[in-house]
């Protein structure tokens, strides 16, 4: 393998990944582990026990001050006024025309302090968007905190038990957050995740990251890469920005109407309301192939629409994915013919999520 100097950004755990034999890839200008020993093995470790992911490439924006709520309510699609201190909330960031700029988790750290987690590829653009709209407000501070945090996701049926064992107090419940000392390391523990399993996401200082990682790995958390992260999220139909979400389509089309509260008058609310009222022309559906083959992002669907995410499901052992299709076809049980690089492959529209615990 060549070793030319890299201009890619590296997380605090880079050396750990290399030492563990990870295959490193360029992901949104970060050099990240795509897999250690195999995507399937890591996927099954998360479904069956506990996996640990370095997701430090994700960005953080802190919004604080007396007008923090006012700014976030304008930017985020969800009703931020309903977010309690130590709560977590999912939303999308829309343009005026309803196109999706990003999808985000926001944690309320304190009465006037919020931390929003961005996708790596959108972080700089999100930050600009936040700052541009903060300009007219006197009493709000928007801070880039991407360098301040290392973010780990510990996920799987044993994840809480493993993290709890080194925590100074009980872990926050699902969709809540709290500061804990994990083996003495101050950590923001969030009851969130992207795998469909129980677990936590951990934010700590980069200087503490190696110690925390090593401790959790020693206690049985299996290092898992971005490859498994993608197959896990797709089995449970979580959106991936750049695949299933983009500026070309709105949140209603994407099935994210539940996190859009147009009455808050967030940027894009009018466009979102118009689509909600008239009904979208296309909808994001989940599908599984009937036979062999794997549909991939960009594969066209006969009669209109396209695949936005596709992989082989390690748990279901068939090709699965998500696709935008004309609304008339967005009905469970509908047959789809997908053009997979020149071969027509038959698929069926399925209920979301594609994978359920115990199924």
């Amino acid at each position: 393998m060549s070793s030319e100097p890299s201009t890619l950004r590296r997380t605090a755990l880079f050396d750990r990944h290399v030492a563990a034999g990870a295959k490193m890839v360029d992901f949104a200008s970060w050099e990240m582990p795509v897999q250690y020993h195999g995507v399937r093995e890591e996927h099954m470790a998360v479904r069956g026990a506990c996996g640990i992911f370095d997701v430090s490439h994700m960005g953080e924006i802190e919004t604080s001050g007396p007008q923090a709520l006012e700014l976030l309510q304008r930017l985020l699609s969800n009703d931020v006024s309903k977010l309690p201190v130590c709560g977590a909330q999912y939303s999308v960031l829309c343009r005026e025309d309803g196109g999706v700029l990003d999808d985000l988790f926001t944690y309320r750290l304190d009465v006037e302090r919020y931390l929003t987690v961005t996708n790596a590829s959108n972080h700089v653009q999100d930050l600009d968007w936040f700052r541009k709209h903060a300009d007219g407000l006197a009493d709000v501070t928007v801070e880039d905190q991407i360098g301040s945090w290392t973010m780990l996701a510990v996920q799987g049926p044993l994840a809480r038990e493993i993290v709890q064992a080194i925590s100074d107090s009980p872990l926050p419940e699902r969709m809540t957050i709290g500061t804990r000392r994990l083996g003495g390391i101050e950590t923001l523990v969030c009851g969130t995740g992207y795998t469909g399993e129980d677990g936590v996401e951990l934010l700590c200082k980069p200087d503490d990251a190696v110690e925390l990682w090593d401790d959790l790995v020693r206690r049985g958390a299996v290092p898992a890469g971005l490859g498994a992260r993608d197959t896990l999220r797709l089995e449970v139909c979580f959106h991936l920005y750049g695949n299933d979400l983009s500026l070309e389509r709105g949140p209603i089309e994407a099935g994210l109407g539940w996190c859009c509260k147009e009455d808050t008058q967030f940027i894009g609310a009018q466009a979102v309301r118009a689509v909600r009222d008239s009904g979208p022309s296309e909808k994001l559906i989940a599908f599984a192939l009937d036979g062999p083959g794997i549909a991939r992002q960009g594969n066209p669907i006969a009669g209109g629409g396209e695949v936005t995410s596709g992989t082989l499901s390690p748990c279901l052992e068939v090709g699965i994915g998500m696709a935008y299709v004309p609304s008339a076809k967005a009905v469970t049980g509908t047959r789809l013919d997908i053009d997979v690089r020149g071969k027509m492959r038959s698929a069926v529209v399925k209920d979301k999520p594609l994978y359920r615990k115990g199924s």
Partner: protein
Amino acid sequence: MAQASYPDDLLYHAEHDWARIEDDHATLGITWYAQDALGEVVFFDPPTVGTILTKDASYTEVESVKAVSDVVAPLSGEIVEVNDALGENPATINEDPYGDGWLVKVRLSDPSERDALMDAATYKATLAG
């Protein structure tokens, strides 16, 4: 196969394919380097017998969980046999890339094309760069 290996009795193409030539026939597959870069192969849809291969052009695909990879023909010819067993067990391509993980057998249309392929030492040197 965990360790890199490039048998001396094969010829190699820069796109990480190998050929085992016997008279005017050859068995083709992908190299250890190719299968390692791809990761666990989860799908292989064998091409059909009779398909014409053109040297340096893609003739089939192998897929890992993450990606689809084109397989390039190291030599020109016509497919006379395909490894149907890989349909059921595509990971054989990872486990035994030069043995049970072979992809196709071809009748060569121009056996002199072999002169353009690399021996194991030359191919290995290209990987070191």
